[in-house]
C-alpha cells in the first residue's frame, strides 16, 4: 500500500505547476550537463576513433546521430501521448503544458532524423529519399508534431485547444507501431532494425559504445530542454498567481526587473 500511496502522491505533486517549477531547476541543469557531456564523448568516439564500416566506410558514422535522433523522436511522442491521455482523463493542466513544451522538441528531433537519413542515403543507397513505408511513417510523425502545434494555434479557447490537442496526441500513437514494423510488414529500401529488445544486436560491439553514449546523451539533453520549456510555460500560464509573484520578487535581481 505504501508504494501505491507514494505513486499517488508523486502523481499529484508533479501535477502541481508550483511544486514542479520550484523543484525542477536542479534536474534541468543536471540533465543539460549530462546530455552535453555524453554527446561530446559519444560523438568523439563515434566520429574519430571507431574503425570505418566494412562496406560503407566512413559514411556510416552518421548512424551515431541518425539512430539516436529517430529513437528519441518516437520516445518523445510516447511521452506526448501519455500526457494527452492524462489530460483527457484527469484534466490535469500540467499534462497539457507537457504536450506544448515537448511537441516542438519532438518536431525538431524528427526533422533531424529525417535530414540525417537523407544525408546517409545519398552515398549508400544512391538516393536521399524514396517513398517507402519507413520513411513515410516517419514523415507522418513529423507532421503529427506539427499538427499538435498548429491545432493549438487554430483554437482560441485554451481548454478546447487542450482537449483537441490531447485527443490528436493519443490517436497519433497508432503511427508508432507502424514506424516500428514498417520494415517487416512491407518491402522497403530502409534496412530492418539493428537493435531489437531481446535479440542480439547486429551492430558490432565496438560501434555500440558510442551509439549508446549518444543515445543516452540525446535523451538527457532533450529531457533538459523539455523541462526548460515547461518551466517557461508554467511561468507564462501561472503569471497571475501569488507564488509566481513571490518567486519573481525573490529573483528580481536575476530577471533584471
Amino acid at each position: 500500500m505504501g508504494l501505491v500511496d507514494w505513486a499517488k502522491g508523486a502523481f499529484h505533486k508533479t501535477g502541481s505547476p508550483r511544486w514542479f517549477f520550484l523543484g525542477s531547476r536542479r534536474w534541468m541543469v543536471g540533465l543539460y550537463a549530462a546530455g552535453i557531456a555524453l554527446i561530446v564523448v559519444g560523438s568523439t568516439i563515434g566520429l574519430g576513433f571507431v574503425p570505418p564500416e566494412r562496406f560503407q566506410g566512413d559514411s556510416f558514422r552518421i548512424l551515431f546521430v541518425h539512430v539516436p535522433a529517430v529513437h528519441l523522436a518516437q520516445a518523445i511522442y510516447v511521452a506526448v501521448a501519455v500526457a494527452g491521455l492524462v489530460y483527457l482523463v484527469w484534466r490535469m493542466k500540467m499534462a497539457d503544458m507537457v504536450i506544448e513544451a515537448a511537441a516542438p522538441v519532438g518536431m525538431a528531433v524528427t526533422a533531424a532524423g529525417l535530414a540525417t537519413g537523407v544525408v546517409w542515403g545519398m552515398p549508400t543507397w544512391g538516393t536521399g529519399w524514396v517513398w517507402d513505408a519507413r520513411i513515410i511513417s516517419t514523415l507522418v510523425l513529423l507532421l503529427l508534431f506539427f499538427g499538435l502545434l498548429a491545432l493549438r494555434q487554430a483554437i482560441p479557447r485554451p481548454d478546447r485547444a487542450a482537449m483537441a490537442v490531447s485527443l490528436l496526441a493519443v490517436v497519433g500513437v497508432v503511427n508508432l507501431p507502424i514506424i516500428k514494423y514498417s520494415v517487416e510488414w512491407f518491402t522497403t529500401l530502409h534496412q530492418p532494425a539493428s537493435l531489437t529488445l531481446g535479440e542480439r544486436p547486429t551492430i558490432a560491439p565496438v560501434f555500440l559504445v558510442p551509439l549508446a553514449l549518444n543515445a543516452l546523451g540525446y535523451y538527457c539533453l532533450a529531457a533538459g530542454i523539455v523541462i526548460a520549456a515547461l518551466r517557461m510555460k508554467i511561468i507564462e500560464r501561472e503569471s497571475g498567481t501569488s507564488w509566481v509573484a513571490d518567486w519573481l520578487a525573490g529573483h528580481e535581481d536575476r530577471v533584471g526587473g
Partner: protein
Amino acid sequence: MKPVRKQRLAVVLFVLVGAGATAGLVMSAMQENINLFYEPAKVVNGEAPLGTVIRAGGMVVDGSVVHDDTGLGVRFTLTDYAGHDFDVVYNGILPSLFREGQGILVTGRLDDDRVFAAAEVLAKHDENYMPPELEGIAGHQSATE
C-alpha cells in the same frame, strides 16, 4: 478512480482501438501499394506488370555481373536465394555499395522476355554494421545471412 474518469478513460481507449483498427485495415488493404518493390518471385511468376515503370529488388547473384567492354553498360542477375532469378541490364553509374551478394533495388521496365531494363539502381544495405577486421569471424558471419 472516480466514475467520471473511468468513463473518460473508456472513451479514450475506445477511440484508440478504433483508430488502430482503421489504420490496420487500411494498411492491409493497401499492402500492394505500400510495398516499395516487387520481389524476385513476383517478377518470375508474372505478378509484376510488363512494359510499365516498376521497382524490383533482389540480391546480386555471385559471378553474374558482366560489364560491357566499352561504356557503362552492365548486366547482372537478381535472386531471392529461393530459386527465383531475373536478369537486369543497366547503363549508368552503379552505387558504391553495389557488389555481388548485395541487396539491390532497380527502377525500370520488364520487357517481354522478363529482362529488366533499369533506369536507376539503388543499393539496399542491410542492418549489419561491423568493422572490416571482424568480417569472416564465425559469430558475425552468422548474423550476415
